């Protein structure tokens, strides 16, 4: 018991630090604003009414109270409550100390914002709930303790038989439904279900873009482009196991081919969308080969840093004075003409969503076919053990180059569409961070499988859009989530599974030495 008390206090301290961090970045203001908006206030301003700050504090307290009882089952109710009490009290006291310090700053009118930029006097007032310093501090501590104990109580309640049973029922109900579907989709209606599912998917894909307005069209378009990129990188990293960090360079090549061939400036060639797209794909594939040739001996992180360098080289060259006359330099290229589809201009957001979906389907199709083939298996063997793969008769260099080229081609495709959709592309679109995004998405989603890639793309590109409510805290939250996801699901959201091969139905051809061996 003593032990778990000590532990609970440690948890409290941790949360105290978290709380202090939140205050010092004015996270509480942001949450309060959100709460205010949810409670129907149209324009709460940057610093809403004190009650919302209290609400924030209570929420923190609840969280602490719940976290305090994490992995504690054996104890009695009273002890559990005690634990949540001690934890929240610890945090509360730390918060209290912080409040006192803030109060001192406030009272003596110390200007501290050069060091900690958010600590304006209004903010401090709000953090003290607009009360007198003493009152504010006390209320803070009380809030924490009350909410903490309440949280503990909730957890205990949640762990009682009845509630657990309730949850179990719900979950099992869902499981049943899924099993039903699975059963149906396996049984003799298998084909029907497949078609049904796919056509439903298609219906959704066709109808929704018209429905959900240009913003979400744009977001989904971007997600789609990143799915294509993800699949391409999956071929390189996921299948053939080469860590490539400069992947976005191929994307850039695709985009710039499209731009240079379809923009009035700087060359005014106006080839039209489709030839440019094709050429872009080919060029990226070629550049993949050229990059590959000299560095095929490198493995692991050496390859990573070299390819990172390659990406940066491409970006800097595109931007540099040397190529300005050719690539438009840092200004990038504007007014890229959109595609024509059988003579019809084809460049509203909706059209592009369709185009991108088509691209995604194509990419997924190719990816799947390759994955389940001799080529795919050769790649996997290289990923697993390059030396042995070689000794098993796989020409590793050839297949590594092939992986690079095909992966690059995917990127070229995405790049071409991207440039003509934004009607603009510039060197800084293709910075290192973009490559890293793509790599992250395939790993977050789950390496080497399509659903994983799609989910990853949603997470990496959709999430920041959803997080827009968080304003400046957007990327902070994003980074934290990235770490959290890796910690909770190291194999990705959807880990890939190996394909199953059923034994051949017709009797296996017996092994005759004349055919089976090379002997004369």
């Amino acid at each position, binding site marked *: 018991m003593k032990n778990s008390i000590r532990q609970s206090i440690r948890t409290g301290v941790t949360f105290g630090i978290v709380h202090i961090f939140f205050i010092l970045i004015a996270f509480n203001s942001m949450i309060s604003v959100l709460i205010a908006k949810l409670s129907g206030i149209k324009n709460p301003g940057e610093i809403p009414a004190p009650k919302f700050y209290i609400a924030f504090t209570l929420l923190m307290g609840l969280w602490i109270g719940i976290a305090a009882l994490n992995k504690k089952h054996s104890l009695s109710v009273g002890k559990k409550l005690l634990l949540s009490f001690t934890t929240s009290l610890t945090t509360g006291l730390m918060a209290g100390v912080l409040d006192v310090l803030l109060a001192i700053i406030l009272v003596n009118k110390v200007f501290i914002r050069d060091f900690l930029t958010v600590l304006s006097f209004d903010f401090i007032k709000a953090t003290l709930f607009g009360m007198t310093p003493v009152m504010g501090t006390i209320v803070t501590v009380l809030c924490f303790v009350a909410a903490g104990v309440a949280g503990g109580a909730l957890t205990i309640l949640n762990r009682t038989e009845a509630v657990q049973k309730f949850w179990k029922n719900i979950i099992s109900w869902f499981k049943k439904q899924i099993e039903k579907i699975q059963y149906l989709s396996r049984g003799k209606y298998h084909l029907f279900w497949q078609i049904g599912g796919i056509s439903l998917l298609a219906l959704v894909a066709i109808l929704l873009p018209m429905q*959900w307005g240009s913003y979400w069209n744009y977001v989904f378009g971007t997600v789609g482009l990143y799915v294509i990129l993800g699949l391409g990188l999956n071929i390189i990293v996921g299948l053939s196991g080469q860590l490539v960090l400069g992947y976005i360079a191929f994307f850039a090549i695709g985009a710039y081919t499209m731009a240079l061939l379809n923009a009035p400036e700087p060359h005014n060639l106006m080839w039209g969308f489709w030839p440019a797209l094709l050429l872009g794909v080919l060029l990226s594939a070629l550049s993949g080969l050229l990059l590959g040739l000299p560095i095929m001996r490198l493995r692991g992180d050496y390859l990573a840093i070299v390819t990172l360098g390659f990406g940066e080289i491409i970006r800097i060259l595109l931007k540099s004075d040397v190529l300005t006359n050719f690539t438009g330099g840092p200004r990038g290229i504007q007014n890229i003409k959109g595609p024509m589809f059988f003579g019809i201009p084809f460049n509203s957001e909706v059209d592009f969503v369709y185009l991108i979906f088509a691209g995604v389907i194509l990419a997924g199709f190719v990816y799947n076919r390759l994955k389940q083939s001799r080529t795919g298996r050769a790649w996997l063997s290289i990923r697993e053990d390059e030396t042995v793969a070689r000794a098993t008769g796989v020409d590793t260099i050839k297949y590594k180059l092939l992986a690079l080229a095909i992966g690059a081609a995917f990127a070229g495709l995405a790049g071409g569409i991207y440039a003509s959709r934004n009607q603009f592309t510039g060197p800084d679109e293709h910075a290192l961070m973009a490559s890293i995004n793509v790599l992250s998405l395939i790993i977050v989603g789950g390496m080497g499988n399509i659903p994983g890639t799609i989910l990853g793309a949603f997470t990496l590109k959709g999430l920041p*859009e959803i997080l827009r409510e968080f304003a400046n805290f957007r990327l902070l939250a994003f980074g934290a989530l990235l770490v959290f996801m890796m910690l909770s699901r190291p194999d990705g959201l959807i880990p890939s599974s190996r394909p199953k091969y059923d034994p051949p139905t017709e009797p296996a051809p017996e092994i005759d030495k004349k055919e089976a061996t090379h002997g004369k």
Partner: protein
Amino acid sequence: MKAMKFLAVFTVLVVLLTACGNAGSSAAAPEVCETDAFGCAVFEEGDVIKIGMGAPMTGGNASYGIDISQGATIAMIDAGNIEGWTFALDAQDDGGTAEGGAAVANKFVADPAIVAVAGHIFSGATAAAIPIYEKVGIPMLSPSATNPALTTTGSKVFNRIAFTDLNQGNNAADYLYNTLGIKKLAVLHDGSDYGKGLADIVAAQFVADGGEVVDEQAITPGETDYTAVLSTVASKSPDAVYFGGYTAEGAVLVNQMKTTGLENALFFGCDGTYGEDFLTRTGENGEGAYASIAPASPDSEAKATFNAAYLEKFGKEAGSLSPYTWAGYDSAAGLVVAIKEVAVVSGKKLYIPRGALVDAVRTLDNFVGLSGTFTCQDNGECCVDKPQFVIVKDGAWTTAD
């Protein structure tokens, strides 16, 4: 089977996201709205009129976005109200990239309360955003997107109070050659579209005037050690160094010129290197450095009060985050003026005819802001007067004669 699972996930996400992003529409309205090309934005009692801003709030250039949006926030406070309808700024992070710019633009388009956009900040984001606003008639007034090509595309909605590189560059070159009598000039830029555009024009014009450009170099932005490039420049012994870029690098250059054999060369910056920050960061090294700014009285009443308000609200000296604080204020304030011009109140509702607003912004005339006096031309350039040249004297920017 995966297909089914994935289908489930997909539909859930779709539903979720569509739930977030649905757009409203306007109701019956006065005749201006009937006639207007883009219809009206309608505001009920208690709604706020929103002005959008797409700016980099994260990443390496966040200081610009945050600073400019803060300047604009104060403009919202000063804007007052139209018979009770107040203004608010909706600043969204576009990362300064085309992808972000288009995303933000689409978000604004989906929000009926957004009537105008102060921005975007970086040219790339702006270029990708213009066509999207064009479709629905949301006027833009960018404080800092200087890429000349932006106003050559015949866009109706895009305007800017930022200098064009041509205007600033040519005048700067002439001033250097004729007024200051510089003969040998070294031109540096930070490789950004702004800096490079400016530097190229200055170099060309300076040569045209008859001067000699001894060296033209580009530096890598975001770094803090330019001694190498400065040393090579020094070996060409120029009389002056022109720099197209921002304070971040400009200040470093000025400081390191002293240790690299350029202590006697004169530093000539642009409106990107103007601002209090330059003074604090260069100290006595900055003495005698030039900059070119939009014609305005740098220490007017309004500016002083603004600076006070800014310091009070954000705890920083105005201009300490970027040179564009005041431009940010002006772009928002200019839009407010235009909105007040066209807004109509009838029957407890406020109507803002979008088409009319687009024209109103384009015909903004003689608008006196903190960073200059602006009159928009037909192509959307609002800052056309000759730039004014300022020099650092005893730690302060003073008008150079």
